[in-house]
């Protein structure tokens, strides 16, 4: 019960401070899920993100469900998911019902210009942390650069990038394994 509550509260904190979509959650996830609670490793977090891109629904919810189910099964998945969506429901619900011109308020626009600048810096620092673990050789460096550019400049679905990168990983490692086997046979 205590763990379920902790999952709910942790993911509510993450949801309440995610500005600009699921990717902007990454710095919060690293701090809360990896460093503080040690519910997942950096690598697992990235696996969840990659799979979250290819499965239906909101990435933030997919990640919450993954972490929740790993820690406490189905009840854990439900707690984490309800946690991550609760701040949205409360905040957007209040704005929809009571404040008709919220997004036009000057103060809101100024605050969000500041927050966007912070989000860029926070995501960049997360990317550096992750890259140290996953961009480990020339092949992964090339994959990383090509996918960054293609995904920024074209409109292809992320699903295509994730699936082709998975196939590349498989092919590269299988041929590596085959080569080292032949070396041994000589």
């Amino acid at each position: 019960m205590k763990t379920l509550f902790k999952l709910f509260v942790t993911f509510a904190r993450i949801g309440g401070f995610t500005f600009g979509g699921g990717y902007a959650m990454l710095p919060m996830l690293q701090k809360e899920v990896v460093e503080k609670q040690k519910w997942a490793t950096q690598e697992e977090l990235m696996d969840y993100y990659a799979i979250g891109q290819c499965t239906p629904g909101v990435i933030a919810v997919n990640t919450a469900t993954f972490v929740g189910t790993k820690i406490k099964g189905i009840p854990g998945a439900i707690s984490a998911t309800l946690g991550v969506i609760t701040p949205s429901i409360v905040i957007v619900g209040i704005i929809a019902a009571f404040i008709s011109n919220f997004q036009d308020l000057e103060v809101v626009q100024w605050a969000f210009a500041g927050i966007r600048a912070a989000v860029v810096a926070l995501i960049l620092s997360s990317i550096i942390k992750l890259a140290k673990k996953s961009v480990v050789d020339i092949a992964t460096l090339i994959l990383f650069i090509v996918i960054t550019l293609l995904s920024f400049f074209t409109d292809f679905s992320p699903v295509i990038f994730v699936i082709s990168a998975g196939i590349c990983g498989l092919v590269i490692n299988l041929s590596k394994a085959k080569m080292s086997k032949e070396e041994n046979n000589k």
Partner: protein
Amino acid sequence: MILLEMFFRFFFVGMFSVGGGLATLPFLTSMGEATGWFTQADISNMVAISESTPGPLGINMATYIGYQIGSQHSELFGFLGTLIAPLGVVTPSVIVILIVSRILMKFRNSKYVEYAFYGLRAASIGLISSACLGVAKIAFINSEIAFSTENLLSFFDYKSIILSILIFIGVTKLKKIHPIVFILLAAVAGIIFKM
């Protein structure tokens, strides 16, 4: 009855939008056309508000539209709409991820899965970097002004660039400080300097 129909319609939106919150947009647009529950103007308000509030985009959008649909009947339905629409959107995700994580745990030690993830992780960082570039473009470049050497200072939003650099130094040097602190500081700085 309308609440039940709402749940299932949002369930389908959640089930078919792959690749994050904004991917739900075309499905929501066609839902509006099919049911007449909300207009194109509601949709543009929905996007503006969802981007100016914390939380996952897809959930914010569903909550806003859920209120608009329900409140046409009564205030109570408006309130219920803010619950039912986001719950509808997340239900398929939860089911699919529960299944996927079972499969993943079973095959975690397979070398083929490990081989595929070697590529997947690089892709994952690539997608995150591209999203970061997207936010940087909105934050740092004033799109209303054409680029030329004379108006460099107004083309680039120098206040945002300086703030971003300061925060980046802050995160790298002061590892103990929670990202929330930086986000709040940046919001205050944005208001003080009228960014």
